[in-house]
């Protein structure tokens, strides 16, 4: 309950800040959308950083490094340090200058003007809003997971099916409403102020979390030594021999259990009572009874050749059954003649919600987690997954995928909410601090998160010695689970507030941005001049924001995806449009038709690959061994260049407007 009280106080303080900033509101739509270009260097740094570091940076990076190891930092954090600032420097400052000069509020206004095309807005608007939705989804989904995990056991009898904590759907809803309220009251100024405050909160609390947890794990060295001992692959980017040997052994044992269970379930084998007793007596591994129940007779059956009669087809079906995967109607042609590998097995779709069986299996152990002897429903499902499904194969990082991850952070060049933040700057010099400090701030946030994720793969509970986070644990819940297990209720509450601060500091800018785009690029653009007053425009923006947030909220109720995977897909979409913004600023020959080709090429390639990845359900999806974003960028760039070169170039007026010649040169000529 302490955690819940602290989170509630934090949310109330945030609302107070929104109300305070509304007192500074000047009542105009320009002030609402761009804070009247009044944001100085410090607030610009904090709001740009707070906006880019979302649930992806805290919840996503910890969960991803739990799954993939220390190399996760190199995938996105260090590359972002180079690329984000590069984008601020090469695009941000120039767009800010053009925005100030020609009065742009949104990207679409700039593109319409630069490309001499009104209709480019019609095609860009749905694409940009469509890509912001998964970005919003990351925050909405993660806030629900964090609050639910941290408040487990807060209620005595209410919300039993959510482990007696706040249900994720309710938590996400409350967060959306809080952010909506302070965005509505304060507009861009309120958002920038809230972002600054929240960025300070999550950076300070993040570092405190890191030191408290490392202390609980026996210190920095001990925490790392546990990983070296149990999961050395997580310390590097190739597969460690020790992990590979362990996995082969575990996978072999798992196959035996799969064959045994299949043979028993399909009446191909029945052990007598005497054989069962002998199996139990011979089985020496110190396992809990629920595991010993099938491990012992499986080992006995294998040792005595009782499983030798199973055909290859039966064995393949046995593995699918044990791993809760659905057999396909059109199996591979060699399904009956060749034993499938673990990789082949992973291609079969897993039954949705299969781990619910864990709730029946362990129903006597499940209860209110305020009683330390009871299990949460999440734990029951986790234990079911860890004990029934095939062990995770150790996974290295492909150098080619690592290299092509570099294209993902290019997305900041096309984030509509960042464009809007860039335009809030008081002067071009306001960007300097953001450009310099951004990589360092990324490091301060990501290094502790990645280390925590790596440590959690091998951490044991300081009191019980049991594994803190079991294998197959949902990656999105690793950070809140670690915080809850290793800190007291007061600190857990504060630290959760810090995580929520990071999430909300992105949601607010995105909410505001979609409203601004709708009013500026659609409503005002297609209505007669002076048709709407400033107040009416603000109301229209708010109504559109509520619609988009409601849509995102509905999506968040479906089966969750890995925050990191969903984030990478969303960023890849924006990155595929990066060539367009770069060319529009630096390539005179870019034409309207070339821009259409780039947008269509980017959109279609993204859609095709996104559906091919099972709508982000496959976290290891690649195209010819590289990140899909590589091909999206290639396709959009190639289409843009080819089409631009074969179509009529922009008019002289546009070229003079966006590529002015220095006076001296004009005079010379």
């Amino acid at each position: 309950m302490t955690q819940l009280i602290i989170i509630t106080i934090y949310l109330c303080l945030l609302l107070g800040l929104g109300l305070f900033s509304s007192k500074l509101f000047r009542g105009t739509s320009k002030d609402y959308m761009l804070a009247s270009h009044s944001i100085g260097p410090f607030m610009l740094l904090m709001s740009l950083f707070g906006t880019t570091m979302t649930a992806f940076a805290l919840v996503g990076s910890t969960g991803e490094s739990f799954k993939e190891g220390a190399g996760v930092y190199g995938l996105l954090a260090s590359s972002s340090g180079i690329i984000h600032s590069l984008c601020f420097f090469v695009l941000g400052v120039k767009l800010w200058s053009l925005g100030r000069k020609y009065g742009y509020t949104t990207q679409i206004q700039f593109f319409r003007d630069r490309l001499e095309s009104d209709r480019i807005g019609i095609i860009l608007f749905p694409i940009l809003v469509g890509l912001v939705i998964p970005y919003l989804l990351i925050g909405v989904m993660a806030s629900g997971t964090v609050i639910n995990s941290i408040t487990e056991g807060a209620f005595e009898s209410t919300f039993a099916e959510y482990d007696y904590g706040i249900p994720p759907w309710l938590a996400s809803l409350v967060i959306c409403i809080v952010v909506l309220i302070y965005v509505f009251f304060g507009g861009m100024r309120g958002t920038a102020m809230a972002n600054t405050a929240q960025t300070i909160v999550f950076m300070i609390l993040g570092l405190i979390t890191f030191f408290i947890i490392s202390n609980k794990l026996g210190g920095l060295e001990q925490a790392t030594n546990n990983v070296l001992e149990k999961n050395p692959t997580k310390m590097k980017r190739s597969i460690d021999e020790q992990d590979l040997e362990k996995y082969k052994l575990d996978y072999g044992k798992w196959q035996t259990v799969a064959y045994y269970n299949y043979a028993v379930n399909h009446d191909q084998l029945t052990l007598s009572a005497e054989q069962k007793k002998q199996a139990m007596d011979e089985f020496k591994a110190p396992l809990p009874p629920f595991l010993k129940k099938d491990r012992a007779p499986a080992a006995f059956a294998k040792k005595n050749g009782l499983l030798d009669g199973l055909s290859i087809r039966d064995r393949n079906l046995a593995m699918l059954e044990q791993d809760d995967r659905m057999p396909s109607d059109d199996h591979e042609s060699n399904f009956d003649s060749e034993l499938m590998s673990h990789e082949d097995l992973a291609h079969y779709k897993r039954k949705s919600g299969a781990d619910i069986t864990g709730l029946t299996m362990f129903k006597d152990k499940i209860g209110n987690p305020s009683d330390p002897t009871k299990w949460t429903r999440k734990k029951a499902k986790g234990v079911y997954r860890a004990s029934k499904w095939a062990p995770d194969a150790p996974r290295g990082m492909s150098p080619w995928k690592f290299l092509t991850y570099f294209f993902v952070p290019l997305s900041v060049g096309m984030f509509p909410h960042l464009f809007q933040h860039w335009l809030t700057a008081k002067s071009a010099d306001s960007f300097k601090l953001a450009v310099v400090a951004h990589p360092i701030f990324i490091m301060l946030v990501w290094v502790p998160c990645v280390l925590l994720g790596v440590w959690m793969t091998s951490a044991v509970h300081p009191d019980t010695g049991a594994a803190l986070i079991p294998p197959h644990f949902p990656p999105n819940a690793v950070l809140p689970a670690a915080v809850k297990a290793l800190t007291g209720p007061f600190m857990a509450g504060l630290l959760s507030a810090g995580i929520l601060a990071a999430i909300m500091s992105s949601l607010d800018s995105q909410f505001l941005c979609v409203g601004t785009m709708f009013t500026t690029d659609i409503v005002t653009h297609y209505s007669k001049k002076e048709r709407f007053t400033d107040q009416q425009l603000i109301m229209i923006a708010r109504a559109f924001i509520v619609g988009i947030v409601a849509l995102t909220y509905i999506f968040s109720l479906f089966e969750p995806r890995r925050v990191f995977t969903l984030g990478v897909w969303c960023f890849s979409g924006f990155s595929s449009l990066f060539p367009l913004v770069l060319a529009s600023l630096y390539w005179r020959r870019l034409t309207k038709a070339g821009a259409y080709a780039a947008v269509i090429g980017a959109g279609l390639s993204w859609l095709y690959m996104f559906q091919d990845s099972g709508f982000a359900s496959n976290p290891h999806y690649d195209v010819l061994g590289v990140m899909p974003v590589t091909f999206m960028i290639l396709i959009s760039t190639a289409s843009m260049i080819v089409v631009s070169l074969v179509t009529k170039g922009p008019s002289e007026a546009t070229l003079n407007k966006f590529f002015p010649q220095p006076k001296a040169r004009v005079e010379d000529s």
Partner: protein
Amino acid sequence: MNKSNGKLVIICLVILLIILHHDVWNWDNKEPVFGFMPMALLWQAGISIGAGVTWFLATKIAWPDFSEDEEETVVTESTPVYEVAE
């Protein structure tokens, strides 16, 4: 140092950072540095610091001067051209 030389220095430094980022020589290194820090993480954290230094230099030797640009601009604000074009 004039602006164009400054830009060249920054471009070279960014290329160097991109090359150093692809640290294939650390791929198999699992030994922690300072007793706790995975090499894969420490090296990349160093890249972040390198990026901070590079961008600091960029603000000193390659920062565009917008007040000058605006003075030299020949064309002033005009009606959006697409209204005429379409």
